[in-house]
């Protein structure tokens, strides 16, 4: 289990223990965190699991693969620290990861 903190746009914070091997998106969906839609179910086809990764974490997590940046073009208000949470796999190294959720997903 790895502790991940999801902060809603309103500022409401949820710290959840997520099983290693799940994605950060699945951790949110399985725990009913509002603000992550994940319409395509994690196939990198929709950009509705968009999160902002706290700066200090952004360079620590595995880099984006081909295609993620293209999908982020379609996200709502993408920034430099934007990621698709379905593409971030939970491992021990992510203990304490903090992600901020955008105002909305679409």
């Amino acid at each position, binding site marked *: 289990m790895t502790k991940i903190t999801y902060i809603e746009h309103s500022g409401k914070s949820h710290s959840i223990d997520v099983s290693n091997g799940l994605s950060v998106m699945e951790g949110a969906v399985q725990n009913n965190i509002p603000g992550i*839609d994940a*319409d*395509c179910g994690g196939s990198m086809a929709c950009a509705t699991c968009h999160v902002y990764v706290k700066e200090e974490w952004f360079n620590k997590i595995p880099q984006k693969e081909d295609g993620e940046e293209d999908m982020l*073009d*379609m996200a709502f208000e993408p920034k430099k620290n934007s990621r698709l949470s379905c593409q971030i796999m939970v491992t021990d190294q992510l203990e304490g990861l903090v992600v901020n959720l955008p105002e909305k997903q679409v």
Partner: protein
Amino acid sequence: MINTDVVIIGAGPTGLFCAHQLGIIGLKCEIIDNLDKIGGQCIELYPDKPIYDIPAIPECTGEQLTNNLIDQIKPFNIKFHLSERVEEIKRQNNKWFIKTSKNTEFISPNIVIAGGVGSFEPRKFSAKVSEKLEDKSILYSIKDKSIFKDKSVAIFGGGDSALDWAIELSKNSNVTLIHRRDEFRGAQSSVNKIKELEKNKQLKIFTQYQMASVKGVDKLDSVEIKHEEGEIKSLKVDYVLGFFGLIMQLGPITNWGLNIDKKTIPVNTENFETNQKGIFAIGDICTYPGKLRLILSGFHEGALAARGCFKYAKPDEKLRFEFSTTSKTVKSRLGIKE
């Protein structure tokens, strides 16, 4: 008014195969889809991407899968109603009345919702940017390009639609292309073309900028765009075009009295009927314990939903189970001569 045994909402792989299964058991159906083409997510999201988990097909693309399904249902001459969204349904004399955005009307004892994650709609700017001037000066698709002649147009986006329209409109309009990063994901030939047009001063490009706000009351006056580093630039423009791809929205489905659980519709796994009699849900849009969002599951769900439709379409007949390999009736429905 169109009278049919089943109206299928959604022309993705699940809807198409359900149509096949309906044809096999001798029911008529018509298919409605909001997209202008057949294939649903397969054709809209990943036409060229390979799929590896269709039974007996080791590898195929979304487009190939769609074309094969279209081939497979050819014998049934199924009518498609594309670029139409179902807006309204209501119960009428033990059947369902269905009306689309183009005012096509159906009466049918059965509706099969194979709507994926909803209908595809253009992704928009945030509401504070969009709401006032949408459909007037802020557009997400182009119906008549002549309105842009000799006007200033700001095009936002980095994919093929944005690039293609930037190239096309630069012939007769003053075009500025704005994208949030330096790389464009559109075709390389289009990227080369816009770079060339920029060099020849036939259009302007601003990268690492995004929409910040729009100015203007009844008519668009200018847009402000914001650089990653915070700098703000103001552009005088007559029109704004946003090309950010499509998003799936449940839309009017939420008003049909169906139980909805997190954008999905709970069904029973015997025939995939919803809480409304004669309305079935299959594919990504349905949910039940153990649901897998796989195309192959959608095929299974469609086969069972088709059987579920039979009792409402032909209440006085009994459905016999038959194999396509051996049944004369099935073969004749498929147009196969012995």
